[in-house]
């Protein structure tokens, strides 16, 4: 039996989508990972050391203000990690690229750790400032709910054996969960008035935190973003290799 060659080669995807090919993805991520690691380490070191040792104490909060360099970037990444998972899930549902599903899976534990860092640093700051480790403030509550969403998402990945079924179900959960996470955010706002201050950073506001705190904070945020990217690329690569190993083992068992 001979396989007839197709007359015309199917059009190769080019540009961004070509990295849906695991081989190309791995090659690229291996090329840029060392740079990413170094950049994130440098940014984090510069941002945190600058922030911790070379900025003045706040006149009301004293040195506790410096936890902002961990709190704000991790909170930012906690939300953006979920957003990235949402986009990756959509890509998996629409275009069925395995790398995308695995990237969503790889991002979830990173996101949950970011959420945890934000919650814990917030509690440590809140103890001297608000006089309590925890208050049922809308922002705090919605972060706790986000944490629960992450746990559910990870648990669903763990519970299902078949990787494609797991990818499909978690993607659906991620979409539905996103809608409900936003709903919960507004419901929680309605439910209790806040203790938490407004956004520390925004593009459209005249008044942000003072410049002395602002620039090291930006560097720290850049460090967290780079760290997140590096971790997700690294973990996605691990997932791809893990799946490959399983496929090889299965083939071996069949022979």
């Amino acid at each position, binding site marked *: 039996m001979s396989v007839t060659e197709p007359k015309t080669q199917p059009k190769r995807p080019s540009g961004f989508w070509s990295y849906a090919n695991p081989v190309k993805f791995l090659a690229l991520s291996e090329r840029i990972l060392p740079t990413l690691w170094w950049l994130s380490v440098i940014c984090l070191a510069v941002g945190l050391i600058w922030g911790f040792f070379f900025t003045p104490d706040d006149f009301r909060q004293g040195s506790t203000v410096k936890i902002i360099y961990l709190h704000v970037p991790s909170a930012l990444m906690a939300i953006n990690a979920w957003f990235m998972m949402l986009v990756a899930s959509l890509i998996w549902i629409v275009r069925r690229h395995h790398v995308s599903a695995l990237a969503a899976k790889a991002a979830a534990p990173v996101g949950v750790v970011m959420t945890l860092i934000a919650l814990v640093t917030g509690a440590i700051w809140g103890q001297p400032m608000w006089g309590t480790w925890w208050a049922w403030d809308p922002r705090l509550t919605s972060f706790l*709910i986000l944490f*629960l*969403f992450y*746990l*559910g998402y990870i*648990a*669903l990945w763990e*519970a*299902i054996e078949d990787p494609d*079924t797991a990818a*499909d*179900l978690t993607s*659906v*959960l991620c*979409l*539905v*969960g996103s809608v*409900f996470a936003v*709903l*919960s955010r*507004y*419901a*929680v706002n*309605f*439910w209790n008035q806040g203790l938490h201050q407004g956004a520390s950073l925004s593009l459209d506001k005249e008044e942000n935190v003072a410049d002395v705190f602002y620039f090291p904070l930006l560097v720290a945020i850049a460090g967290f973003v780079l760290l997140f990217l590096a971790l997700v690329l690294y973990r996605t690569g691990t997932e791809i290799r893990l799946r490959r190993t399983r496929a090889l083992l299965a083939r071996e068992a069949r022979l």
Partner: protein
Amino acid sequence: MKALLARDLALALRAGGGFGLGLAFFLIVTVLVPLSVGPQSELLARIAPGLLWLGALLACLLSLDRLLALDWEDGTLDLLATSPLPLEAALSVKALAHWITTGLPLVLAAPVLGVLLNLPAPGFFWLVISLLLGTPALSVIGSFGAALTVGVKRGGLLMSLLVLPLYVPTLIFGAEVARRGAVGMETQTPLLMLAGITLGVIAIMPFASAAALRVNLR
């Protein structure tokens, strides 16, 4: 659709269908609360609306694994998936049957349990209204959780972890209606939000549930 509804109702009402278990659970939770927080009637009166909502929610949650699991085991779901009835419609009907056999009895029992918790007089009306509006959302969201976890053996705990965060908005607005009603504040805003959530969920959720169930039936 009617046949499916009648079948689900009949199965739930017959022996072994688990009808009444949710109610009994609701009763037990309500009895345990004063035992755990103390019998002071003014304290109970203040937390009664929220507690009754929480009890109803948990009772609803615990009966969810019956929504699809039995039909999954005996192959009924495969038949439903191949029948001309769209899976979305079948799941809506199943959620409706679940609501009639669990949600509605909970709504009817809530005022009686309210007496046990010393619920203030104006609260009874709003408690029933809020539960009547909110419990359909609980059933429909629950059907999504059931569809996600139907292929997982002993998925009860997993389903709780998945479904409870999704219940947050419904719980907040529902309990807020009951709480405001009990202390005589205006209830219109949370009531409208609750109705909005229920209607939106009824309209959209069956598609998500059906998508999840199709993956599991593959």
